[in-house]
């Protein structure tokens, strides 16, 4: 599949060590070198601490050393990434060392964000230049999905293709090809936005909370807004970043039109108010460390946070708002969006690539051209004119054509200047339900769920409820659609376009039944869920859950009933029912027990699997990655992990096809459970937790019920019981807990505040 099996990273700073960690996440053997080998070792330790590794054990895949004395360690590497300081002389000497040690055919790339490719390659041989390109990662490399790739006239196109394919499939990156211009795409536009916004905000003397409220949510820009982001990056870093771009760009570029280091910023740096790393920036913690304070841009003193009472709404409403925030949003976005439109074709020929870079590199929900579409290109052109600005030709063209994007042809297409629309290329092997919905209708479905035809005899079940939660209708649809699949398809994939796989049961439904003290209604909800999920489990075709994002509570129970889970690497899975005062009762306890018993890597015997499940369910643990989910026992060792979310559905489809050859549904299993003596050991865990002050009174009751279920009630270890026995216990324990006032408080609290109550 790929010929990149080992890698070396030179330079073990934040970026270098983060890239090394992520290469290890992809299963590679990695060498990480720095001048001082202890810096390299510390880099690995830092990544373990900050979560750069998807499993802390992956740190064992990274070998560290000195880039001077251990440079021969790179001789096995298929890919060598240079991530040293942004100094041309330093980079040149590193390349000389690489050139003499690397093996023929290895690929060399630089993580530079400021130095042109041509300058990097001065004095290098043609063969080195053919194997060389820029791969620009974003921080932190595990989570930021953008990889900007810049190749030069001498770069072998096959080298670029290999890196792009590897980074997409194995590193999960979104690849954007950039031209060799300063700041490439994302930083050119992103730092312009920051520079303009900072200067405008200071000029207006606006409350920084108000600024972030207007610049953030309405435009789909992350919650950190501007000032939270500056604190995170480091306020002292901004002037040098902005200045270096200003120096690299021509005098006529609008990037020159703002102050790279406004006096306020200079004073803040002087006072060591440089952001989060210094403990104070635009925000700081209150002296008691319990709350936060904001810097007043006029008095330059800290004051308590002010809540922003205006509802901002759409981007257009934000820009037209009378408040200072509205003036800010108008000034900043008018200039930023229009600047982006002038950068085609200078930084890229494709507006779709520019939008993608801003989404993946800066976490914007929509890129600049999508935002102009949202504002309406014609309106935007008029708004520019009204403010005395000349609308860029590209905006005028979009206004004439009816926008930057269209789906009229049944495929999502983007405006190519002078050539009308072209469909957005999708990487090989990616399937998306939203693409599919532009050209096809579901083969069956209801308001609750749709069934799509993915081709090759594979169907895809997509829930349509909010956050893919379950109510009676959804459960009924699952049963009906399962019937349909068994008639017309050979396999089923469960997938979604939402960022969550499923948030589980609809809590309002629970709460209504509890408030009416309607035990029968609760029981029938539990029974309906168990029946629907078991219909999937024992269906005559294989079912594969394509799980990404959050799969919690009933959402995870849904996935646990599938023959396989195709997991996205960043899967956050958890049986979190105890946090709302109940236990998993849609087969979650039963299925986790079955998985633990069958897992050769987890302890065995009459109590050990129950003890493991008890600790996992009792703590409501949510996995920090798919690899973590594997250790917790949610995933089977045979389940497969997909690094790139875009490939999840197609990978799940391939798994489903593979399983459908000679498929036979599973047989119900017998479980050996320890009964009261094992339960006694589990309750002992509660005793110790209680003594340590980490168990609330209701936690104790929930724990006792959970112990009872997982040890099989009155089971005897010499008499294995059918799995349905545990299912019955789940239902009973659920009903007993659900009808307590403390559970009702927990559910109410979760619905109202979105976080768990410990009562």
């Amino acid at each position: 599949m790929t010929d990149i099996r080992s890698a070396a990273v030179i330079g073990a700073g934040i970026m270098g060590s983060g890239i090394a960690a992520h290469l290890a996440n992809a299963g590679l053997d990695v060498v990480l070198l720095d001048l001082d080998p202890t810096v390299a070792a510390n880099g690995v330790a830092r990544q373990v601490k900050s979560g750069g590794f998807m499993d802390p054990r992956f740190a064992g895949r990274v070998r560290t050393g000195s880039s001077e004395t251990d440079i021969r360690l790179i001789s096995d590497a298929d890919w060598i990434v240079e991530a040293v300081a942004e100094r041309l002389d330093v980079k040149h000497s590193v390349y000389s060392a690489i050139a003499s040690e690397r093996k023929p055919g290895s690929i060399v790339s630089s993580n530079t964000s400021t130095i042109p490719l041509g300058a990097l390659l001065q004095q290098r041989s043609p063969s080195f230049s053919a194997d060389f390109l820029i791969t620009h990662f974003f921080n932190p490399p595990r989570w930021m999905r953008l990889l900007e790739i810049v190749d030069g006239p001498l770069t072998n196109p096959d080298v670029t293709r290999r890196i792009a394919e590897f980074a997409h499939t194995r590193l999960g990156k979104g690849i954007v090809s950039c031209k060799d211009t300063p700041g490439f795409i994302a930083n050119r536009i992103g730092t312009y936005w920051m520079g303009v916004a900072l200067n405008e905000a200071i000029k207006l003397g606006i409350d920084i909370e108000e600024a972030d409220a207007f610049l953030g949510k309405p435009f789909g820009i992350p919650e950190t807004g501007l000032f939270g982001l500056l604190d995170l990056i480091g306020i002292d870093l901004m002037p040098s970043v902005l200045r270096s771009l200003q120096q690299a760009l021509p005098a006529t570029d609008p990037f020159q039109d703002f102050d790279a280091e406004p006096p306020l910023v200079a004073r803040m740096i002087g006072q060591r108010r440089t952001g989060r790393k210094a403990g104070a920036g635009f925000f700081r913690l209150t002296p008691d460390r319990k709350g936060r304070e904001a810097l007043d841009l006029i008095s330059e003193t800290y004051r308590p946070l002010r809540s922003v009472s205006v509802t901002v709404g759409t981007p257009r409403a934000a820009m037209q708002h009378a408040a200072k925030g509205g003036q800010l949003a108008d000034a900043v976005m008018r200039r930023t969006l229009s600047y982006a439109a002038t950068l085609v074709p200078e930084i890229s020929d494709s507006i779709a690539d520019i939008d993608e870079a801003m989404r993946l590199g800066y976490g914007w929900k929509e890129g600049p051209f999508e935002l102009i579409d949202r504002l309406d290109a014609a309106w935007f052109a008029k708004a520019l004119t009204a403010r005395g600005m000349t609308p860029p030709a590209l905006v005028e063209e979009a206004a004439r054509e009816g926008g930057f994007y269209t789906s009229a042809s049944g495929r999502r297409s983007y405006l190519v200047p002078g050539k009308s629309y072209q469909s957005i290329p999708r990487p090989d092997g990616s399937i998306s339900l939203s693409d599919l919905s532009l050209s096809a209708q579901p083969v069956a479905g209801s308001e609750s769920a749709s069934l799509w035809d993915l081709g090759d005899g594979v169907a895809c079940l997509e829930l349509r409820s909010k956050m893919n939660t379950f109510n009676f209708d959804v459960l009924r649809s699952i049963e009906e659609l399962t019937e349909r699949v068994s008639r017309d398809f050979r396999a089923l994939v469960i997938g979604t376009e939402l960022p969550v796989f499923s948030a589980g049961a609809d809590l309002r439904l629970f709460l209504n039944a509890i408030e009416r003290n309607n035990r029968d209604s609760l029981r029938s909800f539990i029974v309906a869920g168990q029946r629907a999920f078991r219909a999937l489990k024992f269906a005559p075709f294989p079912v594969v859950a394509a799980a990404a994002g959050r799969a919690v509570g009933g959402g995870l129970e849904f996935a646990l009933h599938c023959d396989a889970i195709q997991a996205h690497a960043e899967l956050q899975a958890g049986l979190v029912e105890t946090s709302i005062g109940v236990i998993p009762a849609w087969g979650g306890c039963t299925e986790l027990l079955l998985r633990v018993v069958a897992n050769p890597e987890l302890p065995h015997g009459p109590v050990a699997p129950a003890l493991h499940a008890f600790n996992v369910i009792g703590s409501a643990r949510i996995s920090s990655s798919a690899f973590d989910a594997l250790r917790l026992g949610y995933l089977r060792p045979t389940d497969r992990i997909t690094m790139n979310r875009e490939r999840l559905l197609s990978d799940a489809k391939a798994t489903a096809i593979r399983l459908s050859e000679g498929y036979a549904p599973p047989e119900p299993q017998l479980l050996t459970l320890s009964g009261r003596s094992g339960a006694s050991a589990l309750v002992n865990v509660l005793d110790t937790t209680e003594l340590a002050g980490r168990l609330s009174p209701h936690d104790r009751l929930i724990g006792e019920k959970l112990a009872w279920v997982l040890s099989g009630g009155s089971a005897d270890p010499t008499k294995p019981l059918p799995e349905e026995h545990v299912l019955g216990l789940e239902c009973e324990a659920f009903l007993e807990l659900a009808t307590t006032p403390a559970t009702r408080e927990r559910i109410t609290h979760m619905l109202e505040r979105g976080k768990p109550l410990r009562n």
Partner: protein
Amino acid sequence: MSAAYIVDYLRTPFTPAHKGALAGVRPDDLAASVVKALVKKSDIDPETIEDVILGCAFAEGEQGLNIGRTVAVLSDLPLSVGGSTVNRWCGSSMQAVQAAAGAISMGAGDVFIAGGVESMTRVPMMGFNPMPNPSWDAALRSAFLNMGLTAENLATRYGIDRQEQDTYALESQRKAAAAQADGKLREEISPFLADDGIVEADGCVRGQTTLEKLAQLKTAFAEDGSVTAGNSSPLTDGASAVLVCSETFIRDHKLSPKARIASYAVSGCAPEIMGIGPVAATRKAARRAGIKPSDVGILEMNEAFAVQVLACCRDLDIDPARLNRDGGAIAIGHPLGATGARLVGKAALLLQRDGGKYALATQCVGGGQGVAMVLEAA
């Protein structure tokens, strides 16, 4: 009745469970390494060995399959040598020494290897599949399974505060670190040859700790309690063994024993204050040896918890400063099944090194027991 003698003693380095240098080593291999080294060092004819008696608190998994016999075979001893496993939880290997001495006194053999092993990394405390009797009420179950709770109970009953416990713990660390620095532990340690190098030093000792650092630790068991990881013994991997021989064997082979086993005693107590077990056991063993506890010059008392040692000293009217000259389990570690033989072996070495007539080794045992053994200079 034949007298029994401690002829020799060795142990592996004791290293922290999970993160120490021996975490990857199977406990049977660990114990076999020390048995082999002991046989080699004492230069006895292996054919003369009657039995390998091995203490182990949680004898399952890699510690199962009668680890005593497993270790006898792994140690390349003649197949005629027996092997058995003894379980008295933390008192297991002191019990193993008693079993050897008891057999000698009834003429059931002349040469025994008595030792113990615990990999607290590879077999969890309380085992993989704990199944306590469900008829026990919560208090009894908890007293049986939660050692930290029993330590907190003693702290409350004896009014021993956090500072007193931390001060004792610091002293244990200081003594162990000094002994380590002066090479005083070298004689008893048999280095372990691991796949990735030789392990020759104890790994648990924290000689750099201070009272301030100890005071900052969170309580480990009870939110409002006083017992911390700093004033308790750590989870440890290790093995130990002593060579126990009869008087006639020693005479015939011209061996120079380190000490004679003078007496032994076990005594039960309330499970919820199991840490007080050494008091009654010590009194019994002293009486059987015909001495008073105050006659004993060398005192090795296991430090499961600082508070438990302090409570025992109070009842026995012993100055805690007299205990554990080279540091105790808080610093050195407490691989459950291996500790008893370490205490007996160490007491015998100290008698020889520092002089004196009597030495005492004693320890508390979970579930509510104490064991004690009195040695007399040979």
